[in-house]
């Protein structure tokens, strides 16, 4: 609390500083000018246009709508020569409404097949460049119309997603309609026949670059007719007849660069191509399995021609093109970009190479073939970083996506390869990525944020990201109006928030608020952004201070909103986990109660325990467990049908993950704190599944189940059920052999409740004939239980120290015993007055074992330093237990453990009394 107040103070202080600063410069600047008299619309047009150029479309639209002057300037064609619609929904009517701005549009990027259909409505007849991605469903009709409506088209790029519905017809239409076409790149077409290629060859005399990537069939012979083509990529294309390809391509007079990456080309075809194509300068063959198997690398050394493969030194090869300007091979891209006197041909080669390299590296990173570790470490990572500094926006983006992808070596288990991540970091990648994330282009922002997010799974990288200021950059991006950007930024914050040391930093830069706002901004915005936001909030809420910030930012409402109304499993899971973590701070802040008071929260969580998705059930049960810590929540959960739902969950979790088993048992433990719930749980059939869980080998599971059974056993009816369901052997087993002291302790206490005599009253009510056999079997169960309770207590007593303590009763010897007997985690257990009263009564039980056990339990509950020790001491005081304890400590017939433990409890009580007085 104090920390928050202090930061508030610091903030307002900042403001004051800048205010005084501005006041000073104010009085300096002018005596008469107030803000009111500044006329921003009087700025020269050029400067206003420059201002506009720094804004994205949304901001431009907002500025343009302020007044006439800006409206006119805002529609200047120079501001609208390029449009990136990728982050926007684009249907025909939206596109039509944009048409008034698009008369001079030159460059367009869009996403999705629907948008592909709609862009004709932009009526941008002057378009020179169209680039579309995620167009799996684009049809021949759409592509043909696109070509027919944009006759001035010079560059057309559809991919990298496969366009399986596209046939030769559409390619032919492109050739016939767009005579000025200079570049055509298309991916995943099933067949590109001779007709289509010949149409391109005959109509598009300036066609200099072709990319038929990942196609199934391409007519090799027709490729030989593309006289104007300088750069050709058939990367990933199958069924190429390589022997004839080199023959046909060899005839092309202008061919400078060929990309055959990810194909089954062999060394014979490569060397034939290298020797037959006269002007060929670069042959790129990344990840061609046959070449890599064949070895025989010598045949690729052809003078004046650069051969690029995973097994060649790519930087060295590229540097050979720039022998005059580059000193350091690794800097070759940088040197090239900064050199002013590179001839145009070489520039073209490099721009094309950047594109094909980024394309193939991303593809290779996606398929993640084995055996490429050394490639990635020795040059792949550096290449991606070099490409990320490209002047071509889509190369930058693809390189960043490549970085995000290649570090993940196992999708299933979210494994980020340490070596690869650290290689990126070593090469200055974090700095570069953060720079990109800070750029004003949203496409690059989102890819950079994605890469930062994935890399940050590695703790070292996460640390570097934080140190380089990445947290505030990501928090800024999370406020983006572009959902794709915000989504990746939230992912970054999610991964960073894993580190305890980063949580506070995220909160300090307003990240918590930004994340909560994301949920309000896109309440139905798809699973991606919501899952990441909720996941990040969940991690943040695990920290006490941050959890307060989450609540202050409206996080409780937002997360409950998700738990109630979001239909995506992933989002539900993270929202429930976040609510669980918010409620995990028990009495140290008010969030627990706040969650319960949020309308519909508990009902929604109860409902989520019935989800078909295991993760959702687990987190919902975890949330209910934590929430049941609060008295009112506990009753409200029961009222919302929580008992039935959680018993059902426990009954059906025998094959579930340990996490789910633990939380199902835990939630029942939490609810069973009140006896009414206990009775309901027993009635609903909760005893049997809890016994089953108590038999689990997993420590966390059986410990939690033991806790629940302990609470249930307080009620004699439940105690009887436990016996009937075969719980005694299970508990006896736990009590004697669990590796967890807590599990043994709680199992012993369960057995003590069961056999301290109260159950007999219930057990004997029943048909008398059954009564006898029941009491017989009860007797043997009781004997077994008491025997193990006794053994359990004895494991905490060392005869020597006991004798010493009994003889001297000096404080130090008692302290020794107490220390040896102490079960650390038992300090977290909180007992009600009734429970404490039951142990006090047990001090006078006829069984000496139970007397010792009761004294042992009270010792645990009152050890100074325990979280609830004071509470327990005052309950004991109220119950007048001191007299009984003294009697127990002095009893002649009692076992020595009972006496010593009772003495220690008395000592503990004195300690608390003194403390209370102080």
């Amino acid at each position, binding site marked *: 609390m104090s920390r928050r107040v202090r930061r508030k103070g610091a903030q307002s202080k900042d403001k004051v500083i800048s205010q005084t600063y501005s006041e000073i410069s104010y009085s300096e600047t002018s005596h008469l000018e107030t803000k009111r008299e500044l006329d921003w619309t009087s700025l020269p047009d050029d400067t206003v246009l420059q201002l506009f150029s720094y804004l994205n479309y949304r901001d431009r639209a907002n500025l343009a709508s302020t007044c006439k002057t800006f409206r006119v300037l805002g529609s200047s064609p120079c501001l609208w020569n390029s449009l990136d619609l990728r982050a926007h929904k684009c249907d025909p009517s*939206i596109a039509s409404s*944009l048409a008034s701005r698009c008369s001079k549009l030159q460059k367009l990027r869009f996403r999705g097949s629907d948008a592909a259909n709609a862009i004709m409505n932009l009526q941008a007849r002057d378009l020179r460049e169209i680039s579309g991605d995620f167009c799996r469903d684009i049809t021949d009709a759409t592509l043909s119309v696109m070509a027919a409506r944009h006759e001035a088209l010079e560059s057309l790029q559809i991919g990298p997603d496969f366009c399986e519905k596209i046939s030769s017809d559409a390619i032919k239409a492109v050739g016939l309609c767009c005579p000025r076409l200079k570049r055509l790149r298309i991916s995943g077409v099933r067949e590109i026949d001779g007709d289509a290629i010949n149409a391109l060859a005959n109509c598009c005399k300036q066609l200099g670059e072709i990319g038929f990537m990942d196609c199934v069939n391409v007519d090799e012979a027709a490729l030989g007719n593309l006289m104007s083509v300088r750069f050709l990529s058939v990367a990933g294309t199958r069924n190429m007849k390589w022997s004839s390809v080199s023959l046909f391509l060899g005839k092309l007079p202008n061919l400078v660069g060929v990309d055959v990456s990810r194909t089954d080309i062999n060394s014979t075809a490569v060397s034939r191509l290298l020797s037959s194509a006269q002007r060929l300068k670069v042959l790129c063959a990344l990840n061609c399995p046959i070449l890599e198997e064949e070895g025989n690398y010598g045949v690729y050394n052809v003078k004046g021609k650069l051969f690029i493969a995973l097994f060649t030194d790519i930087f060295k090869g590229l540097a050979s093109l720039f022998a005059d300007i580059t000193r350091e091979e690794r800097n070759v891209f940088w040197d090239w970009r900064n050199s002013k006197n590179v001839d145009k041909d070489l520039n073209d080669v490099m721009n094309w190479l950047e594109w094909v390299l980024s394309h193939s590296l991303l593809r290779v990173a996606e398929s993640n073939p084995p055996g490429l570790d050394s490639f990635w470490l020795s040059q792949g990572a550096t290449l991606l970083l070099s490409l990320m500094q490209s002047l071509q926006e889509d190369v930058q983006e693809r390189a960043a996506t490549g970085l995000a992808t290649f570090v993940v070596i196992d999708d299933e288990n*979210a494994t980020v390869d340490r070596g690869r991540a650290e290689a990126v970091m070593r090469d200055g990648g974090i700095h570069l990525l953060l720079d990109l994330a800070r750029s004003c282009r949203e496409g690059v922002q989102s890819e950079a944020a994605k890469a930062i997010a*994935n890399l940050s799974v590695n703790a070292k990288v996460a640390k570097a990201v934080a140190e380089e200021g990445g947290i505030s950059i990501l928090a800024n991006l999370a406020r983006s109006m572009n959902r794709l950007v915000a989504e990746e930024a939230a992912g970054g914050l999610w991964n960073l928030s894993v580190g305890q040391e980063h949580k506070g930093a995220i909160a300090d830069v307003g990240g918590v608020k930004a994340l909560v706002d994301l949920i309000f901004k896109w309440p139905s915005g798809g699973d991606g952004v919501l899952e990441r936001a909720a996941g990040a909030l969940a991690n943040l809420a695990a920290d006490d201070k941050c959890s307060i910030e989450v609540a202050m930012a409206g996080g409780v409402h937002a997360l409950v909103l998700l738990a109630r109304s979001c239909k995506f499993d992933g989002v539900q899971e993270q929202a429930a986990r976040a609510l669980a973590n918010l409620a995990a701070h028990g009495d140290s802040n008010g969030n627990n109660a706040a969650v319960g008071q949020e309308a519909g929260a508990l009902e929604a969580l109860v409902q989520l325990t019935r989800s078909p998705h295991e993760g959702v059930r687990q987190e919902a049960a975890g949330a209910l467990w934590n929430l049941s810590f609060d008295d009112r929540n506990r009753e409200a959960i029961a009222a919302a049908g929580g008992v039935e739902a959680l018993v059902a969950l426990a009954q059906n979790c025998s094959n579930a993950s340990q996490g789910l088993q633990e939380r199902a048992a835990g939630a029942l433990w939490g609810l069973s704190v009140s006896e009414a719930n206990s009775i309901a749980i027993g009635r609903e059939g909760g005893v049997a599944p809890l016994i089953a869980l108590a038999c689990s080998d997993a420590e966390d599971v059986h410990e939690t189940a033991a806790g629940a059974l302990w609470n249930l056993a307080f009620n004699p009816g439940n105690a009887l059920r436990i016996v009937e369901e075969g719980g005694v052997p299970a508990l006896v087993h736990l009590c004697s052999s669990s590796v967890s002291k807590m599990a043994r302790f709680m199992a012993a206490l369960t057995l003590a409740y069961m056999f301290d005599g109260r159950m007999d009253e219930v057990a004997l009510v029943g048909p008398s004939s059954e009564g006898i056999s029941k009491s017989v079997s009860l007797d043997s169960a009781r004997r077994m239980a008491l025997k193990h309770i006794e053994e359990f207590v004895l494991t905490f007593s060392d005869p020597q120290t006991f004798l010493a303590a009994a003889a001297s009763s000096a404080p130090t010897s008692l302290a020794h015993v107490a220390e040896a007997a102490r079960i650390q985690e038992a300090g977290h257990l909180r007992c009600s007055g009734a429970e404490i009263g039951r142990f006090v009564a047990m001090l006078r039980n006829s069984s000496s074992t139970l007397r010792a056990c009761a004294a042992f339990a009270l010792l645990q509950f009152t050890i100074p330093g325990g979280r609830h020790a004071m509470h327990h001491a005052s309950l004991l005081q109220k119950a007048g237990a001191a007299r009984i304890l003294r009697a127990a400590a002095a009893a002649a017939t009692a076992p020595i453990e009972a006496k010593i433990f009772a003495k220690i409890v008395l000592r503990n009580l004195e300690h608390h009394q003194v403390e209370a007085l102080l």
Partner: protein
Amino acid sequence: MVIKHMIEDDCADNGIRVPNVRGEILSLVVAYCNKHGPVQNDSEDNSRSDELKTYDADFVKVDQATLFHLILAANFLNIKSLLDLTCQTVGDMMKGKTTEEIRKMFNIKNDLTPEEEEEGLIWKNLVVASTPEGEEEFRGENQWSYEIW
């Protein structure tokens, strides 16, 4: 560099007039140029560029009136880097703001006819409020770590 010469001239002659630019603003511009001027552009000193970044960031922490006049001065004196810096600063102030917020912040009077405003609204709503489509399908490269309390 242009301004560097101008300033040198200015100092030498002590008499060149720079109309339309107030003295206080000019002194800020001179300070800016002195900071940016002396080192040649091709020096690739990282610490220097970081230093300049910090300087720039502090330099534009001024009130609106000063910023306004700095833009005018930078435009008039043709100092590209200063114009970029100041326009970027104003641009940053506008980012993410609604039309109404921008009007308020920069004291811009709404003189649009209802029709014009309507047109603007359509355009804005279409671009602003349109939700991105949900069909994008990332290739599972996003991996998240979980934390259990």
